[in-house]
């Protein structure tokens, strides 16, 4: 296969000529792990812009719904880059981790010196808890996910993809090369772990 410089502008005039992101995704799918950072850096600025615009214009309650942001970004990008529906889940998988970073960075910058009520919260419907709902403090959540990543990277990926990318178990399984049942199990364990840590945090904090 002819090796294209992936950061070239997309070839014009060929409907099936893949855009840069598509090419990166293809390489990533074929197991080229190095491409990951490149891929994220490629769409990071746009993703960030979208998150900021959304925050500024819409979220008076300082709540972000990451899946909606990522999904919206995909639709925008798909138009420019000739991304196919098939590349969607791969794209979302990549974007979900980036999205988490962006939201956390954004929340940090925003929250510095802010009162509790005006701090940014992230709405994760998948992580709704009976006694606390689905709103998470960005920094707290990030810290937990970083710890989980250090413990068991695949579970952290599953949480990212599901909560930030809005992917299904089937899609996540396809990306990670495991079956959907495994993903579901990872998810349930990860969720129980997160809940346990959150609860512990509360107890610790109280004590």
């Amino acid at each position, binding site marked *: 296969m002819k090796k294209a410089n992936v950061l070239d502008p997309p070839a014009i005039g060929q*409907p099936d000529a893949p855009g840069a992101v598509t090419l990166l995704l293809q390489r990533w799918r074929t197991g080229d792990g190095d491409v990951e950072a490149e891929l994220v850096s490629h769409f990071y600025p746009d993703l960030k812009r979208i998150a900021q615009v959304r925050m500024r214009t819409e979220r008076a309650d300082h709540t972000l719904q990451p899946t909606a942001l990522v999904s919206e970004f995909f639709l925008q990008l798909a138009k420019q880059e000739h991304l196919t*529906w098939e590349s969607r889940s791969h794209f979302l998988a990549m974007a979900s981790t980036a999205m988490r970073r962006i939201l956390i960075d954004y929340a940090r910058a925003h929250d510095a010196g802010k009162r509790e009520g005006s701090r940014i919260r992230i709405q994760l419907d998948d992580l709704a808890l009976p006694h606390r709902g689905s709103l998470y403090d960005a920094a707290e959540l990030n810290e937990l996910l970083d710890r989980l990543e250090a413990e*068991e990277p695949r*579970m952290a990926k599953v949480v990212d993809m599901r909560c930030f990318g809005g992917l299904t178990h089937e899609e996540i399984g396809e990306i990670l090369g495991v079956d959907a049942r495994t993903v*579901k199990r990872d998810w349930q364990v990860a969720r129980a772990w997160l809940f346990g840590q959150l609860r512990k945090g509360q107890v610790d904090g109280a004590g």
Partner: protein
Amino acid sequence: MAPDEWERVKLVFDIARRLPKAERESAVRSLCADAPHLVDPILDLLANHLSSTIENPRLYATAATALSCGDVVGGRFKIVRFIAAGGMGEVYEAFDLSLNHRVALKALRLDLLTEPDALVRFRREILISRDVSHESLCRVYDFIEHECEDSYDTVRRVPCLTMELLEGESLASVLESKRPLEIPEALRLLREIGGGLSALHDRGIIHRDLKPSNIVLARRRNDVVRAIVTDFGLAKIDEAERNLFESHANFRAGAPFFMAPETLRTGQVGFASDIYSFGMLIDEMVTRSRAFPARSLPELYYAKLWESPIPPSKRSSSLPEHWERTILRCLEPAPEDRFERVCDILDALEGNIKSTARQSKGLPSTGGTAVALVPERGVEPVPQLAAIPTAQPRASLLRRQAPWAAAAAAVVCGTVVLGVVAYPTRTAAARDPLATTIEVFDITNETRRAEYNHVCSGTTQEVMRRLMNVEGVRVVPLRAARAHAPARTVAPFSLDGALQADDKRTVLSVSLTDNKDGSLVWSERFDSARIGRALDLQENIAENVVAALQRRLAARSSQVQGPAERLTRVAWRVRQVLVGPSDSLLGRPPTRSNAAFDLYTRGRELMEEISPESTTSAVTLFERALQEDPSFALASASLAEAHIGRMNYNAPDPGSIEKARQYADLAVRLDPELAEAHAVLASIQQMQWDWTAAEASYLHALKLKPGYARARRWYAGYIAQNGRFQEAFEHLRRALADEPFDRATPTTQGFLLLMADKAEEAIKVLEETVEGRGALGTRRNLGQAYARAAYLSQGAKRKLYFEKAFIEAQRVAAAEARYQSKTGERPRPSVADEMFAQFHLMAGNAGAAEPYVRRLQRDLDHNLLSPVTMAWVECLRGRNSRALDLLESAANWKDRRLLYLKVSPFLETLRGEPRFKALVNRMRL
């Protein structure tokens, strides 16, 4: 914990979580006998596992949603976004993976369906409402039971339904900022809402929860905003009202403000309770406050059950009296005292006398025909009759009418004398043209029975055709653009109609409105028997419209109407009865045979479908119409048109054009004054390269009927092929003025701009046209315009245009793929192949074009593709002599696509070739 230990943890966790709580610990201990340090972490995880909703009763209340983004419901609908939560469940935006479009998905909360049969009822009603289609109803697509296990790990079934995703504001939020609405605006919305509600009622569906927050002012295709009724068949608690009456948990589902008293009292719902809610809705729209002021739920109950509403006029100063009566009648405490049907309410709001008459109890209904008060055809109604307030008691109406009945009788006796003064004959009309414009809406088929479609469209078309014959009357068809009109009135008068049906009867109501003040100029209802006599029906409508226009215009010019003038009018009607309609100013009816006419309108209806099958069936119908009445010129002209239409689909067949010509000639012979006949003859002559004759026929057709937009559009195409573009665009402008909402005109304009090599202008026009509903042909032209613009530019612009061209090609390819998955066969020839081949070649990428070119060649070999299309491609490949071969072979049987030979920019590289010049000469272009 080490990674392999995590795998172990997961495994044990997964086994244990399925066990009853009491057994979990021992299971974990025995499974981890060799690794006791894992026991506590696993038990800890299990303790934090969300096991079931029963154990976590608060989960429902606090978990934001039942579904999560990314969930795939029913293997098909992928949740994209959470939109809102209501009492009945949550609404999401979802993406239909199999049909590639966005839908709204509502997940219902089972715990709120308290009645045991609620789910059954719900499902049944969804199934029914899925079949109800009305432009003011939110479309319901599917009912799915979503099994969701993963979040709460017990299997739960969530009933979901998918429906049209409406983007717009709810009426509730509009009213919040802008209330009361002006009467005309309210009426417009109520007509739309009422239409939707009627459609439900006709199918036996009760809305149950009609209120402003269930009406969405949505932007649908064409950017038209329309009031759309949603959430029918459900009973739902509105969030706002829930908050308002939060302390009273024990209230019934539904919005109490808008609910009928019998519903509040016993939970009983019926059509009458919807009528009540509709009345509340009207009240809400046009008054400043509510009919039942209440600060708490019990207070509201009390007011609704035991008190009378505060009359709307007390809460709004400028409300017309008949609106007040209408609202109050809707709000009658006893269901049987309310209006029976929604259309009666609308009639009453519009000041239509006929529904009023039925209003007083005890008056026998006459099955949809005009009731006693409405004079039979031929007897002049009192001109201002329509303006009499709605709730006028019957007795006083009779008193008003009496002197006029007497006058009419007197006139009948004096017919011979009065015949002389009867003024509106054709010549009289010519002397004194009405000089006005009527916009004619398609009569809507609200019966949802497809077998009535042709009655509606046929009646619309024919009434319009005949009105066009009246000198001075300009007719603007608002075909398929009904919804534009309220916002964009283009003419002083509107003619509108609807066909409605229930088990017993079918009623066609038609009305003429004065757009100046929204008043009703004329309206009438026709029962099944009269609808069956299609020709009389059209005659009647057309005549009455003209007569009503004359009255209204005369009344405007002289505010005071003398008795002499009235007498004249009555005389005219009497004369019509005696002389018959044949000599009326409307011109002759197209046929005398109702059967032939019926076949004809069925054929016209099929022609609208624009598919090979429908066109072939149309041919048969027109043939039968012509057998029924051999002198039916219009049927003959249509038959010619259908034969031409067939040539679009079939392999080139010289027989078709011969037949078309034969019937066009026949049509002209049968009725030399029939513009339709001359227009179709012209287009055939054009295809036969008989330029002089074609031009003469076009001009003759347009002389006979200057407002005939379609003929003008065809004519524009004809003159453009000779390079007379300026003239052509002039005609298109005029055609657009005559038929402002005709999509075909801008499509033609775009194509001709492309042929004039004004690609960028073509893009502008075609982009707009393609916006709402892009037919493949339009998309192809748009793609070609982009490609041409790209071809002629440099740098970034070139890149951008090519990109856009390919996007259009991909869209067409996607549409063709949908067609293929639907029918199982590849469309041949493929428009997408043609586009891809051309665009790749224009972009200088011959390699990429190759597979498409091969496919096109194959289609050409099978005689499925026009050689002219292939010639365009060969030109781009630089194979000029091959292109010329193809064009010459096309010329042998006068391929239609050769008509633009002389001007097409896609053949520009051939211009210098002697063979090309010879071909142009051969065609005498």
